[in-house]
């Protein structure tokens, strides 16, 4: 279900976002955030378009997009696991969860999205729920005091329900 960037049609959304932000260069980050919200990632086409409209060098917009961890220049999977590796979660062994997820999904720090574009596993530093460490967010839902088995269980549940959907 990846939204493909069909240039003409889809730039309409980008143009709308640009207009909402009054074509302000200063709003670049907010603009990119809104666009990413819409498409789940920032394509080269979109970045060039934004650069062109805002009259910024594309290299500069690219530089901003690659600076901030929230921006993704690659499409992400349908289901996103964001595992906290902040201090509190780290001392409560968050890496065990990460390894379990990597192993189950065949992923690694270098390759964090499955080939079928179903899952992305990322780490973030501190979600501000340290009292519940270790913490994980799956598709926006926060899970606290997660154990590796629990994380894998969530994966299995998603896989099962995806299968059901297909049938």
């Amino acid at each position: 279900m990846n939204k493909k960037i069909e240039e003409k049609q889809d730039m309409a959304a980008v143009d709308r976002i640009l207009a909402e932000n009054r074509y302000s260069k200063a709003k670049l980050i907010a603009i990119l955030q809104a666009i990413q919200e819409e498409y789940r990632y920032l394509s080269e086409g979109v970045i060039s378009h934004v650069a062109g409209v805002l009259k910024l060098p594309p290299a500069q917009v690219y530089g901003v997009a690659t600076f901030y961890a929230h921006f993704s220049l690659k499409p992400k999977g349908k289901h996103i696991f964001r595992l906290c590796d902040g201090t509190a979660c780290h001392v409560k062994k968050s890496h065990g969860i990460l390894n379990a997820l990597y192993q189950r999904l065949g992923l690694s720090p270098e390759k964090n999205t499955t080939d079928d574009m179903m899952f992305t596993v990322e780490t973030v530093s501190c979600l501000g729920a340290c009292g519940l460490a270790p913490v994980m967010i799956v598709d926006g839902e926060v899970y606290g005091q997660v154990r590796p088995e629990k994380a894998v269980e969530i994966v299995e549940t998603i896989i099962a329900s995806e299968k059901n959907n297909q049938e």
Partner: protein
Amino acid sequence: METENKFVTVNGIEVKIGSERNLLELIRKAGIEIPTFCYHSELSIYGACRLCLVDIEGRGVVASCSTPPEPGMVIRTDTREIREMRKINIELLLANHNRECPSCVRSSSCALQDIARRLGVGDIRYKQRIKMQKIDKSSPSLERDPNKCILCGDCVRVCKEVQGIGAIDFAFRGADACVVPAFKRDLGDVECVNCGQCAAVCPTGALIPRQHQDKVWDAIYDPDKIVVAQIAPAVRVALGEYFGFKPGENVSGKLVKALKMMGFDYVYDTCFAADMTIWEEAAEFIKRLENQTDLPMFTSCCPAWVKYAEIYFPEMLPHLSTCRSPQQIFGAVARKVLPGQLGAKPQNITVVSIMPCSAKKYEAQLPKFTQEGNPDVDYVLTTVEVGRMINSMGIKFEELEPEAFDMPFGFATGAGVIFGASGGVMEAALRYVSEKLNGAPMNNLNFKAVRGNATRREATLTVAGRQVSVAIVHGLENARKLIMEQKAGKCKFDFIEVMACPGGCIAGAGQPITHSKKVREQRTTGIYNADKSMQLQKSQDNYMVEQCYQQHLGGCSGCETAHHTLHTGYTDRSGIFKT
């Protein structure tokens, strides 16, 4: 202004505070050298290399490039802590650096190498922790080796602040931070205009002009080839620096001699072509002035500027003079004339340009500048490349007896020579235009109003009772500002000269590297001295040019053949990022 003298103490010596913007300048003024990578007096302060650290009593260690002087400061530039920190800094940089000094183009003019040696960095105790990356050779002008980049950001700032382009910028962060064109594309595929100013400020070999020495050697050693050279105006006042001469010293005679010794068959002067440029361009201007069409007219001899206009101001392209640059005029004429004159097949004549410029490398390979499949100019060498070739031949340049250019394309006037400095094209054109419009020979040929080193200079002249407004800018950001003003009706010029490099071609990316304004001024002075020493000062007086028109270009300037050979057209490149 306070009249009272104010001082700081540097390593125990009192130093008077003048107009320095920062401690670094003040300390250097006091004769103490402080290593830097990221400081440039003409760029914004960046503060990233951390080599310029000094210790201020009561404040601790600060970066001198970003600290303004305050009276009473007690500064030490060489504490043990700072010494250790600087060495570690260099060691850290070298650990993941593509260390190949002996074969690196920047060797001996490389700041990293120089500072490492000066600080006595011996053993690199750190392990190499990163994989080496691909070298980008996509640009016809420049080569980018990310493995030698120390991320000082000088190139980024010059491209953005001076050229107003921003073709390269920082991307990613932390250990992954790098300086790249958008989307990590190759430099040849983005909006870079090939001016090479990034390479001129780069302290290392991460950005260098493309090297074509080997190809030229091949041609020289090829018995079938007749190799001819043209030497650009600005080369003669800078090449000497490579051999220890003072900046600005005119070494054209020695260079001709050296080239002959290397095996070039004929050596000509690009200034001849520059004179011809004036015949065409000034005539074009007079026509536009009389018809009041497509004014202002812009000069078109700087290929970086031309490409800039093609990308950013396609609507202004009709305003560019259609006249080719002197390099390409020379190439076109050489291709046309030399086969007959030398009795050789066109493909057996190799035309080599010796240029102060990286953009000329780009210009020479444009498909539009070919005749029957042969490029008008085969290879472009920079000043530095030629210096290196001379060295490699074992020639003692200092001791050479000067030799004269070959004729007919070795004959030039002072007007052709001053093309090498910002304002020169304009002045040469004015020498032509004023006389033509006045209809009588003129005495005062020096249009001092258009000289100088301000980044923008303006003058209004009365020529034959007519007011002509002209402007000169260098640095493309200044060009952009001027165009925006002109478009907004805030100014109304008739004729505008644009050069991409600061001060014009004397500071092109192919020249020996200098960061000193003074050196640039000396080179400019050298150009105007050369002008004075020439037999003739006005392009219109160049009878060899006139002869050339008569014999080879259909008779006269402006005629069909001449126009076809000496003019060109432009391409709208504004869509470079539209996919």
